[in-house]
């Protein structure tokens, strides 16, 4: 299957500190790939590098057949890559609807825009009920739904999700996992960063384990379900 995303020999830095070391990963068209690792291992930096939110980096990021390593973030997003950051980055003073409207591509007609926002409200009915509420008044779980909805409303071919269950109450985590389950069965590629491999394995086709900025393991779900890997790289 052809690749939608290829990251080759990526090194990323925050100031003088190197965070990623020769990282190479790929995602196939409609494939679902997981990135696992403990806190501070470079998972978020990897996603931020893909969408060019990190200036200081070397290596290559390819989207389909195009080098997007130095492409401005907004252009990458307009090319149908959507990114849901770990801290959600909801505009708290804007309403739920305005947050969604902002993410709808400009060149889309009003009818299609309404249709897409309607689909998000159908999928996340609590967002629909709170459409006129400010983002800052939502609970953590609802904000996560809004962040995911905001990514989906742009109509992405590749979805980058950074720890979507992080910091949520267990009951909300179940809800988010249900949403993710639904997302990964659609015709869309997903790169999913998570700490909890057990919960995530059923969602993905294959994955990578990252340790101190190096890819140390990769393989299918059977390989990644090995308890020794979990103990070595993922247990705190």
């Amino acid at each position: 299957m052809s690749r939608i995303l290829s990251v080759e020999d990526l090194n990323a830095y925050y100031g003088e500190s190197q965070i990623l070391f020769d990282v190479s990963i790929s995602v196939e068209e409609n494939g679902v790939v997981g990135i696992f690792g403990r806190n501070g291992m470079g998972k978020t930096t990897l996603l931020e590098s893909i969408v060019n939110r990190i200036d200081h980096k070397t290596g290559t990021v390819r989207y389909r057949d195009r080098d997007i390593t130095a492409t401005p973030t907004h252009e990458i997003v307009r090319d149908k890559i959507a990114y849901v950051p770990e801290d959600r980055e909801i505009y708290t003073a804007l309403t739920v609807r305005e947050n969604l409207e902002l993410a709808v591509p400009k060149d889309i007609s009003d009818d299609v825009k309404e249709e897409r926002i309607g689909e998000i409200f159908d999928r996340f009915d609590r967002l629909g009920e709170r459409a006129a509420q400010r983002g800052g008044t939502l609970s953590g779980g609802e904000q996560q739904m809004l962040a995911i909805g905001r990514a989906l409303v742009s109509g992405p071919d590749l979805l980058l999700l950074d720890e979507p269950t992080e910091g949520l109450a267990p009951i909300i985590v179940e809800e988010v996992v249900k949403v993710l389950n639904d997302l990964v069965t659609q015709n869309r590629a997903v790169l999913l960063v998570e700490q909890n491999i057990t919960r995530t394995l059923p969602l993905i086709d294959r994955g990578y384990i990252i340790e101190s900025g190096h890819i140390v393991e990769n393989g299918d779900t059977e390989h990644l379900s090995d308890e020794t890997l979990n103990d070595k790289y993922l247990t705190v």
Partner: protein
Amino acid sequence: MIGVVEALLLTPNEFVTYLLNGISRGMIIFLVASGLTLIFGLIGLINFAHGAMVALGGYLTIVTVGTTGSFWFGIAAGVLLVAVLGFVLEKTILHRLYDEPLLGFLGTFGIGLVIEQLLSFHFGDQSRSLESPFPGTIDLFGVAYPAHRIFVIVVGVTVALLVGALLSQTRFGLEIHATANKSATAEILGVDSGKVYTATFVLGSAFAALAGGLTAPITSMSPGIGTSYMLMAFLVIIVGGMGSFKGSFLVSMIVGQIMAFGWLFLEPTYVQMSIFVAAMVFILYKPRGFFGKPEVFE
């Protein structure tokens, strides 16, 4: 200046005249402050060249009116040329200074000085005036009031309504909000934050020129005229709340009225001093101003 007793015994006609004076004065302050509000409040850049742009807009209007004989063409030329200057400055210099407040201050201060000195060099330091396209008076609530001042009030209200609609009803308004609060987040939603910054700066520059062109028939133009407006405009945007258009409008109106009625009791200098002292006390108790609020990312 008249005595307190006389001031309290204003006739209804005198009261309306002072009220309209306050509104038109407030509207001029608002027009200057509106551009600053956009640039300072939303981009975060303290544009010390804004006053010079007001003067430049005024002079360009005067020169164009002198050449073409049309006030409207003069206003359009002033607004357009200053907007183009704003575009060039933003694209070449200013966008590099957004993350460096001190350099932003020095850069815009320097640009303002250059514009003022060029105006002074070309036109001399003597003030110039312009004939209004509305020279007569209009009867308003039984008072014969200068038509040009009423025109300024109408333009000010129109600008306030249009910009209010632009910020609250349009996609561009959403993009300005998003970029101003966190440009990195706006980028992951497909917003070209660089373009939003440029467009905002150009719009702010255009408002400066509009203020200069509109006030040219009321106040004589001199190269340094913008500086006198700037102090009051800064006060307005700080007390109104950073980046709040309605705050700027409200405080401009309040300041305009204080100036109009204050001059009944005190010398103009003391009225201005009192306004600044009152603003300082207000800011101590309400540091974010009337409508300023933080955007919190969660």
